[in-house]
């Protein structure tokens, strides 16, 4: 269904480009909703389905943080390689993306801060080890040791402080790298919590 036949595709050529138009191949899946069907809200249904998964979120989050911890242990033991750096970044990046959904918003903030360190530090070997360990230990503490911690201001404050320490470090070490500074100082486009 997704593809129109070649004869339906109209190409208009200009000096520098072509504009390609075609009938909407997905138009058949749109339907007008009757008054009686308006109560059937697909978004509400999906939110309910997502909520039904929430019993598994703690276990999923544990898997994610254990992966992060293992990635850093490998680096601490054997140093940075591209593969180890990528694994640490991906583990942190997944937590950044998933942790809010799983109910750990402060862990997401800390993981984002860690991602920024990994992405923008000019030389990862010279990053103070404490910067990594404080981020990772904070995420581990939030998830492993006290689930309630994330619901109170302590974890949010911890996240803010770690972000400030990381940003101060990144600003300092990137003072001669304006393209990184611009990204570090730019606001996030992520939806507000």
């Amino acid at each position, binding site marked *: 269904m997704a593809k129109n036949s070649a004869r339906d595709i109209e190409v208009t050529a200009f000096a*520098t480009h072509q504009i390609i138009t075609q009938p909407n191949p997905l138009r058949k899946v749109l339907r007008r909703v009757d008054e009686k069907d308006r109560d059937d809200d697909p978004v509400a249904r*999906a939110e309910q389905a997502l909520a039904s998964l929430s019993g598994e979120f703690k276990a999923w989050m544990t898997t994610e943080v254990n992966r992060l911890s293992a990635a850093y242990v490998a680096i601490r033991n054997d140093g940075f390689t591209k593969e180890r750096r990528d694994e640490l970044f991906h583990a942190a990046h997944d937590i950044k*993306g998933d942790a809010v959904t799983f109910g750990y918003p402060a862990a997401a903030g800390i993981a984002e801060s860690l991602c920024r360190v990994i992405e923008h530090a000019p030389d990862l070997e010279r990053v103070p080890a404490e910067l990594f360990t404080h981020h990772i230990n904070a995420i581990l503490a939030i998830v492993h040791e006290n689930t309630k911690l994330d619901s109170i201001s302590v974890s949010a404050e911890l996240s803010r402080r770690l972000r400030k320490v990381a940003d101060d470090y990144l600003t300092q070490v990137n003072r001669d790298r304006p393209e990184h500074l611009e990204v570090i100082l730019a606001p996030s486009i992520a939806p507000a919590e």
Partner: protein
Amino acid sequence: MFRIDFNKLRFLVCDDNPHMRRILRTLLHSFGAREVYEAEDGATALEMYSHYVPDIVITDWAMPIFDGLELAQMIRQPESKGNPYAPIIMLTGHSEKRRVTVARDAGVTEFLAKPISAKGLYQRILNVVANPRPFIKTKTYFGPDRRRNTNSAYMGPERRVGEKHEVLQQPSLLDKARSTI
């Protein structure tokens, strides 16, 4: 008011994280979708794209083998035997402005920054179904029209010439990525 018949749509979901795939599958099924194919890396996704010919692709950015950005670039091959026009929704933990621009320039149709929400995903799907954009082919780009407004003073290297109608009334990908839905 319009709704989507999700049971007529075929989705390809590409994310290396099994938890996120499970969440996406749950959301899409609860919207009403029946056909949801899953890949855990870009290479597998490309194979599945050719085989299943999905209507909509939802992909993560950071993945092994090749990533979501490369997947988008490989789908957007105008001379390919497959379908180079399928809507691509980039669902990613990346949340920097420059990432949206890079994704847009790879031919991504919609950008959805994590954390995921049912509403945000539904709105992106509704938008690609109800408001498809024309495709543009230049020497360096093939994909949905990237322009969202007219700037007659623009004289940069990618200035297009030869058109009378230049206005596309729609919010920019960045504005939509910033929105909370």
